[in-house]
């Protein structure tokens, strides 16, 4: 077992990551060792990154223990002073008991190296800051190149020839000559509006009022750009670093701030665990990650109810409250197997698609109004084994068949099975009958398998109920 990470006190005693636990115990008998839990470390880092999104949307984790923030253009709250931002971040982290080292740089690599080695000038960084393999570092040191400053003044070609192109690339990034940009954890939203508070806000009404104002602001920006949001995210930054996120999706692009406000309230109402403001939120942000073009519409002089918009708003609202998957449209599917011919999809995912069979003139509906999926087994007595049912028992009740129509033979989808073209190889054929019992109820029943060819004793199922 080896040490993975040490705290400052352990480092001061001469322990270092990579040392075996037995050696470390021999040196410091009263050592406290804990199991390494990389997953928990990742979660903690992600939690910290969430909290850091108060400074910038461009925030990337640098495992195992780094965070990289792209604060370009994000320092207006600190009067353009990056150092003040770094001090604020330090202060917040210290409050949670974290020891952190911050460094500023023009490229992510330079900032990262400075923070890691605790050096403020790039030239003073050791060659290990290149983050190449140990062999390269050693070779550089042996040739007397101990610091990045030593490398900076040398021509690139010999370096590239000796250590590969990756080495010169990393050097250029360290020397702030090339900016690779970070990949943020979240896609920067199209629109972002936020409010900072001098004093944390704890009352839900105040929070909702602020969200309402932010909704107005975002609607205004969306209007200027001729866009409508499809997804809205509210981030509530608690003063103790925790971040609560709420998201609402809409079926059609919208910039109706009243609707948005209502949806967000609905979302808060339906939270499984209610919002816990703790000591209050010191920042609230509304982001629109997904936006689509939405033309301006002329308001009519008369107040006319726009059913289409009302419909979309209603579906959004129900989806937010009950869950997206609970509000559905029917989509037709190309299949002649009855239960496969239909798909139900979330209404938010798009308008219904597909064609439905047109009813034929002078014919009663050929398909049942309600369908059992899976079909329900029934006991059938038939006069001949491959004939129509004479009577059947369903849910312990006997039904005498007085009228029937059929069979309507629906073959299995043999092309889905290997060797399906052989008789019975693709699944059992179904013989459907439309039957009416002596009390006037109409059922859709089928015999599963062709008698004597596919199956010796085919079973019967009730598949649907007619009106």
């Amino acid at each position, binding site marked *: 077992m080896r040490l993975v990470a040490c705290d400052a006190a352990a480092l001061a005693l001469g322990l270092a990551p990579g040392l075996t636990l037995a050696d470390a115990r021999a040196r410091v008998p009263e050592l406290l060792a804990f199991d390494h839990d990389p997953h928990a470390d990742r979660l903690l880092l992600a939690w910290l990154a969430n909290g850091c999104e108060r400074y910038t949307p461009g925030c990337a984790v640098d495992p195992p223990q780094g965070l990289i923030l792209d604060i370009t253009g994000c320092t207006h709250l600190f009067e353009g002073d990056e150092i003040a931002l770094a001090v604020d971040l330090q202060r917040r982290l210290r409050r949670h008991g974290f020891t952190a080292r911050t460094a500023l740089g023009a490229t992510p690599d330079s900032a990262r190296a400075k923070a890691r080695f605790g050096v403020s000038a790039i030239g003073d960084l050791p060659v290990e800051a290149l983050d190449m393999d140990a062999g390269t570092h050693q070779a550089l040191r042996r040739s007397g190149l101990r610091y990045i400053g030593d490398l900076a003044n040398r021509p690139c070609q010999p370096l590239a020839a000796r250590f590969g192109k990756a080495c010169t690339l990393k050097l250029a990034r360290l020397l702030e000559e090339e900016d690779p940009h970070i990949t943020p954890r979240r896609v920067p939203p199209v629109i972002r509006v936020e409010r900072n508070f001098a004093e944390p806000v704890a009352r839900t009404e105040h929070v909702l009022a602020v969200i309402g104002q932010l909704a107005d602001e975002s609607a205004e920006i969306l209007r200027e750009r001729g866009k409508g949001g499809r997804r809205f995210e509210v981030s509530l930054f608690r003063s103790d670093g925790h971040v609560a996120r709420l998201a609402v999706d809409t079926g059609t692009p919208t910039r109706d701030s009243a609707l948005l406000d209502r949806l967000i309230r609905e979302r808060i109402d339906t939270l499984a665990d209610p919002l816990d403001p703790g000591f209050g939120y010191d920042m609230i942000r509304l982001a629109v990650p997904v936006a689509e073009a939405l033309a301006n519409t002329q308001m009519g002089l008369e107040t006319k109810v726009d059913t289409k918009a009302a419909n979309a708003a209603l579906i959004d609202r129900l989806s937010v409250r009950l869950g997206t998957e609970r509000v559905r449209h029917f989509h037709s599917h190309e299949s002649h197997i009855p239960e496969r011919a239909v798909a139900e999809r979330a209404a938010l995912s798009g308008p219904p698609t597909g064609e439905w069979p047109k009813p034929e003139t002078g014919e009663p*509906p050929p398909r*049942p109004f309600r369908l059992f999926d899976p079909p329900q087994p029934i006991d059938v007595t038939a006069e001949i084994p491959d004939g129509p049912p004479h009577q059947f028992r369903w849910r312990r009740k006997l039904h005498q068949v007085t009228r029937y129509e059929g069979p309507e033979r629906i073959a299995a989808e043999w092309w889905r099975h290997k060797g399906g073209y052989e008789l019975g190889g693709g699944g059992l054929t179904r013989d459907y009958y439309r039957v009416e019992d002596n009390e006037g109820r109409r059922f859709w029943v089928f015999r599963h398998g062709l008698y004597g060819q596919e199956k010796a004793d085919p079973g019967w199922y009730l598949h649907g109920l007619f*009106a």
Partner: protein
Amino acid sequence: MNNVRALPDSVLAFCHIGNWRKDKTSQDADLLPLGAPNVDSRLHGGLMRNALHEVFAAQGEDVAPASAFALLLALRLHLPGQRIFWVAEEKQDRTTGRIYPPGLAGLGADPAHMVIVRTVSMLDALRAAADIIRSKAASAVILEAHGSAKMIDLTSSRRLALAAADAGALALLVRGDATPMPSAASSRWQVRSAPSEPLAANAPGFPAFDISLLRHRGGIHPFEARIMWDHEQRIFHDAPLSGGLSAIVSGGKADPGTRASA
């Protein structure tokens, strides 16, 4: 009761006199005729549009005809561009079967105009139904409940009925496997399947229902009728007088009262 026209004197006593001078056309607009002359004449024109109606399944197996009757009422009303919302608890699918769109199409409905809402609990279903009615986006809302749903009481049905009256929507409550309890519904029906008019080769014919009015807020006396659905015209017809044949074949309850009055 602002939408009753040409009432016989005995029934007039149940109406508010204040409103009955209203414009005749607007009164007509407030009523939803079924299309079957026998039923419409007994209802004095039809069912109230902006109200809650209850449809009870006569027996457990009659859920399909009861819900179909509710759907067909909604279809009678259906206005272009407006949706029909079907709200039900998710767990019901297993006992009653799920709504099957090709079957809807066969009844003359457009499945693309249906929105299915499946909720976890009856409470959610009631809330959703009330919201849908109030939004004015739906022409009709069908709420399906099975068993003795305790949530559906006088208060909740009154909430739905008031919302329907305010927003001008048709609200239909389908109850399966339940006994009628006091409610604020404008009318209460019991529906069962009726033997159909056989087609050639004794094939089952067009959908037929035995409907019986159990209760009506306007004071219309309970009656029973047998009606058939015509999916092309989207209209109910009275079961033909010569339908004695189906009654004999079925051995079922041919209703002499209906027949005499038809």
